[in-house]
């Protein structure tokens, strides 16, 4: 039996800066997880991944990350790895938490 699809967001790192970025509803790259386009079907997720992979001059390492909808209906990470990526390291106030 096929595994049940888990909703996703498309994330990558910026080619020049290495910053964590997300594919948003306009097909642009957003800095915040909550601004990512919520990909609730496998077909849509794979389509966006294909589009992202064509943007190699802008990004590096695109992949689909598990996501869920938060109380405000905005996407949030479904796994702690993505929570760290969207926040920054826990030993210093560096990364995204410092930019907010």
């Amino acid at each position, binding site marked *: 039996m096929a595994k049940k699809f888990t909703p996703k967001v498309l994330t990558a790192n910026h080619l*020049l*800066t*290495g910053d*964590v970025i997300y594919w948003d509803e306009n097909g642009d790259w957003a800095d915040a997880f909550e601004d990512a386009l919520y990909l609730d079907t496998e077909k849509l997720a794979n389509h966006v991944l294909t589009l992202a992979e064509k943007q190699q001059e802008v990004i590096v390492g695109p992949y689909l990350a598990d996501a869920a909808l938060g109380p405000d209906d905005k996407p949030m990470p479904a796994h702690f790895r993505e929570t*760290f990526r969207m926040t920054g*390291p*826990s030993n210093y106030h560096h990364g995204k938490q410092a930019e907010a």
Partner: protein
Amino acid sequence: MYSYSQFDKDFIAERNKQFRAQVERRIDGSLTEGEFKPLRLMNGLYLQLHAYMLRVAIPYGTLRSAQMRQLAMIAETFDKGYGHFTTRQNIQFNWPKLRDVPDILDALAEVEMHAIQTSGNCVRNVTSDHFAGAAADEIEDPRPTAELLRQWSTDHPEFAFLGRKFKIAVVGSETDRAVTKAHDIGLRMVRGAHGEAGYEVIVGGGLGRTPMVGKVIRDFLPAEDLLPYVESILQVYNRLGRRDNKYKARIKITVHENGLDVIRDEVEKAFVLQRQAFGGYDQELFASIKEAFAPPAFIDAPLDAFYAAQNADASFRSFVDTNLAEHKNPDYAIVTISTKAHGKTPGDATADQMRVMAELAETYGHDELRISHEQNVILPHVHKSHLPDIYARLREAGLATANIGLISDIIACPGMDYCALATARSIPVAQQIATRFDELKLEHDIGALKIKISGCINACGHHHVGHIGILGLDRAGVENYQITLGGDHTETAAIGERAGPGFAYDEIVPAIERLVYGYLDLRNDAEETFLETYRRLGAAPFKAVLYPAEQIAAE
């Protein structure tokens, strides 16, 4: 110390020029990421969770003060003001921008450093004893051997695309401070029956998902046969090593699956041919390398100031008791500078701290610094009369923590705070353990205890050989920490035994606390270390304190 030859300088300059052009071609779209990735990895540039990471080689952990200052400059100019010393005696910068990396590599080249072969399936930076050239128990300085191996393995065309990475460590003392038995090849300098120089050759050690203690493949290898013999091992590994499964591709698996005797026979066959092929140039080179590692001109001075400070200042006395090791010159000491002030990130040093350590090495330490696999910084040659001044300067810089070899002197990999491979965090666990035992004011009473933490099964944090090892895993989407007991990283190397079920993130520090209190109750006296007590009693009483009956019943 070794200085680059013109050949070395030209080689690095050419490689840096190539990489600069490769970066430009990646940015202008001429290279895809698929094409660029192997090129950047060959130059030490990884992509991690939050950013790129540049891993810079510190050959056998040896630095001059000018090199340390340049690392400080790079940390400040191109990163966030700090660097992270690793268990491979390297330094990692966690936040470089792609466009800056060629400039960073050029800055490294100015001080004879590079990032080549810090990644990829090749022979990696050769590691060694961080007390090399200074330790009282040393038979011979292992650094010339390490440098010879570095030159031989750099850009070696036959070994640029091995089945998997390959790590070599060399020690020159009875005491193994370089974990040689957990390397693909470990070399221990020994003396033959008639006093001749040679090596005991250990092969097939390694940590990671299949931890194995290395096995002796040759009891005594004459010193002049080193390169042909090591080359023979690499050839046999290259031929017999598996390439069908990356998790079975290290030489430890090749040795395990084929048997040590088969590998030894194959190596000896290859060695007959290799020995003829080498023709003596390697020995000329080795002789010139040895000259570069002549001991410094040790000074002769009264020790009154040292003894006076020892009598007058309890905190200095504590530092002396804990952070000094015996030097081959009795008027000298080896000073280990802890990067592990309680609550700080193990292995991290700020640019300012790097400059202080460089200044101390230049002023008092014959211009030498070392990085240990335990992620500390060493001043290998300090005349004892200078210790009070050094201690005062270290205190000002937050570098005088007297905890070497104690419970807060923890190895921790970057873990999920930085590493793309990690399955859980390591750093905050180390920080909390150190802070907790500092609050309890117990660590000097506990005595020698090695805690080593890895944030994934790849074991960069050496958890398998920690007296207490902690492995962070992802269990159903939650961080979970497994404890191993009784590991040993020294010449009596042993892989720790898994204690039982793992602990949640907020349970791991209390679990370690139970374990340590248990040890304090179990030990014969204050002289019996954790490892000795474990070896005397076995795992059972430690498991009993780690998993109290009510907890087991609840599960």
